[in-house]
């Protein structure tokens, strides 16, 4: 088993060399690790490596291949990169501009105001939507001059994180 794995911006090549129950030997970019790995709680692993005790949390992300990884020092975004995801990535390159045309929010919240209408022309930095969460309002602005193409939500709606809200043209 051999996979490419993206950790934040780093791309690593990972290969399973051997496994005997909880003892594994795995190669990362040419360096072989002998580890003793136990899942101790939901999503939490205890890993021993040359005596050092590591606690690593592997939280499922948006897709089957995405994770949030927490070590004691740092949190990472991690993605498994296989043939399928490479294909999708290539395909998406063409849609990249499209993605920049979608305004979405990283956090769940409630739509407070939408000061624009479909077909309206907006300048760069114009506020197009205001979302409130936890007593704080955040304004989302257009990244460039554009025309409002579609508004998928209305004032008062509750939205989840990463949900597309408005598309620009």
């Amino acid at each position, binding site marked *: 088993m051999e*996979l490419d794995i993206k950790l934040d911006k780093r791309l690593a090549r*990972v290969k399973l060399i051997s*496994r005997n129950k909880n003892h594994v030997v795995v190669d990362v970019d040419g360096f072989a690790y002998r580890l003793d*790995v136990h*899942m101790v709680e939901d999503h939490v692993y205890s890993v021993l490596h040359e005596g*050092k005790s590591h606690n690593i949390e592997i939280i499922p992300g948006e897709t089957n291949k995405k994770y949030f*990884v927490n070590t004691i020092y740092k949190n990472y975004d991690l993605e498994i990169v296989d043939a399928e995801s490479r294909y999708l990535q290539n395909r998406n390159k063409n849609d990249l501009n499209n993605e920049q045309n979608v305004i979405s929010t990283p*956090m*769940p919240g409630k739509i407070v105001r939408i000061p624009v209408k479909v077909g309206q022309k907006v300048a760069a930095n114009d506020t197009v939507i205001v979302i409130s969460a*936890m007593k704080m309002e955040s304004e989302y602005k257009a990244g460039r001059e554009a025309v409002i193409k579609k508004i998928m939500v209305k004032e008062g709606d509750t939205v989840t994180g990463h949900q597309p809200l408005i598309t620009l043209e």
Partner: protein
Amino acid sequence: MIKKLLVANRGEIAIRIMRSCREMGISTVAVYSEADRTSMHVRYADEAYYIGPSPSSESYLKMDKILEVAKKSGADAIHPGYGFLSENAEFAKQCGKKGIIFIGPSPHAIATMGDKITARQTMINAGVPVVPGTNRKITTDAEAKKVMEEVGLPLMVKASAGGGGKGMRLVHSASELLNAVKAAQSEARTAFGDDSVYIEKYIESPHHIEFQVLGDKHGNIIHLFERECSIQRRHQKVIEETPSPILTPELREKMGRSAVEAARSVKYEGTGTVEFLVDNNLNYYFLEMNTRLQVEHPITERVVGVDLVKEQIRVANGEPLAYKQEYLRQLGHAIECRIYAEDPDNNFMPSPGLIRHITEPTGLGVRTDGYVYKGYEIPIYYDPMISKLIVWGRTRAGAIDRMKRALSEYKISGVKTSIRFLQNIMNNSDFVDGKYDTHFIEKHMESLMAEKQKCDPHCEDIAIITAFLDYIEKIGKSEKASPVTPETSGWKQYGRRNNLSRL
């Protein structure tokens, strides 16, 4: 004697109040909004009643609805916690009218302290130092200019009804004055429906130091020493400690007396907090009085050895104070960190969501006051505070060591939290030396945001491997790929075991 108490609040403070009730044998009534049906305060209470839709204005701020539940459930008293209706004189009055004990001071005390101009005048009459400035509402340009000449520059224009940093303007030069007054008035009108503003001297590099006071119905008022609350971000407290690193015994005694005078001027009953600004020359000025239990009350509880909620209830029952000023001592040092669901890397944007996993620190000298649990979804409607972490140490250095240990044990996943940011504050040398004022976070922001501890050379690789193993296990390729095939998949024993229907 109060037998049943309704807590008109949610989150950690509702549970903290119910804990003291349970210890006193008082049964508890929770109220909850639509978003809060599965919130811990509903689960912790003996009874729980629905009061309305999720926005506070339609639930936790609905006086009539809450009073109706109090009547229906037979509660003798209402504890408002902090925030929501806790400093609403009208609500206190309504409780009185319905024959329900409001756990807090009189409506008069709330109203007096709620209006800053009135509070300033009351303090001056009581002989408590206030920030130089006017005690009247500014109505004309001429008046504004006259006050400016008296107090000097820089100065602050402040809304009388203000709070939370709203309706405030800092004026550096004379030319900014009139615009600042107009802007503050306009903001105050929008935010509070009252455009009264006044002018105060601007205190540079101030320390925010507050005194806990406690009064009974028999005219006894004591203070329980200070809390240093200068570690703030945008006027929100982040870390509090007691004793203050800058107070001398003499100043402590003097400020304590002023705090008691401030409380006495409004015949204060119950717990309250007198906030002061202290400048670099250790001059102190009355800032405002919070007529309720304060978020950071636990650090006082720890070093003075009292249960402030129990004292509130005893006072409300008409009992005289059990403590005399001369017997109270501060023993050791306590620090509180507020743990917020927010993303420090993303401009501290709030981070509501589902708690995937939580491990709270415990052991010697550690207290957590929280309310979330694994599987709980933090709603978008309320304050982003998840919990308060309070530690005690015999010395300040010992308390900082313990706080670092406790923060390192605190694991919350599913939402972003401020834990790492707090760790960086604990490691900041100015903080460790006790040399800070309210500009601390602003001043050190860059270094507080930086990554402080590094993965050792291998720890990043090990994180990658662990995810790799999780993934190949998930897609079922682990056995096939492995030259040595185990009978059972080893590292997921845990998950499998938990899925067995057989215990």
